């Protein structure tokens, strides 16, 4: 996978977190996997089409999701993972995806994203595609977020 194609996904997440005053964002582990699998508490799946066919998951713990939604609400404490958090984290992923699509457009790649699907559960195993996948961990003060990117073409 072309490393340049990772940048819009990372930049999208970083830009949006910084908008909500979450700064000091660092890149963590970077791993290649034979297929796209993830298994955190909270997984948001977004598909991309047109010039690049890909599936991406943003995976995190329940507490990280709560912290992100708290940051989106200006720091209002969020103590449980409820429907408001589900809605907030989907909205967050949708906005990240919007930034990502815009960044790719600047690279002359026209992409279209699907709406986010949120998958939560116990002992959850998620496998999105049989393509080689890059997992990038993003370390933030609100918790770690795994971005799994599987490009089919």
């Amino acid at each position: 996978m072309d490393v340049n194609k990772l940048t819009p996904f990372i930049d999208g997440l970083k830009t949006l977190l910084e908008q909500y005053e979450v700064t000091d964002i660092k890149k963590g582990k970077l791993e290649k996997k034979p297929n796209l699998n993830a298994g955190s508490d909270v997984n948001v799946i977004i598909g991309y089409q047109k010039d690049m066919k890909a599936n991406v998951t943003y995976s995190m713990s329940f507490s990280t999701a709560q912290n992100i939604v708290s940051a989106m609400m200006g720091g209002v404490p969020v103590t449980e993972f409820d429907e408001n958090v589900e809605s907030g984290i989907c909205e967050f992923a949708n906005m990240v995806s919007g930034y990502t699509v815009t960044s790719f457009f600047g690279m002359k790649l026209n992409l279209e994203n699907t709406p986010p699907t949120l998958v939560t559960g116990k002992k959850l195993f998620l496998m999105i595609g049989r393509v080689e996948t890059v997992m990038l961990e993003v370390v933030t003060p609100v918790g770690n977020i795994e971005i799994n990117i599987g490009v089919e073409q």
Partner: protein
Amino acid sequence: MDSQELISILNPFISASIEVIQDMAEVSAKRSKIDKKFGSVYSSGVSTVLGLNGKYKGRILLDTTVPTAIALAEKINGEEFKEIDETVLYTIIELNNIISGKAITEINNANKEYEFRLTPPGVFWGEEIKVSSPGWQVFCVELATDVGSFNINLGFEGVEI
């Protein structure tokens, strides 16, 4: 989307599911229940998800219990599986990819303006899995098959019927 449009999308999924399950697994299926839910659905055990773009944006979720997924994989592959493994999952992904591709082709051929496009399928399994699309209406069709129920869930962004 009006109710006629919904029917024009739901029916090809029902017929494609029945035909493909019959062709690939030699298992007969028939329509059982239709339901409408809001926002979230719980997985029965093994679910395949595909994103959808076009006139309407949304997602397709095809869902069975673990025993039904194993039984379908056994019928398709002609071998026994004691538990969910990679072969079972790839079989279920392939089955659902074929169902969705067939349904979308039929829908697009009948209604050129829809121009639906699918993302690659993904599969997940586990316990108490909740699939959420906050604020959406989700249309659920249950098929009764010889090896257990097979659920078709279609959700569309911003659609109210």
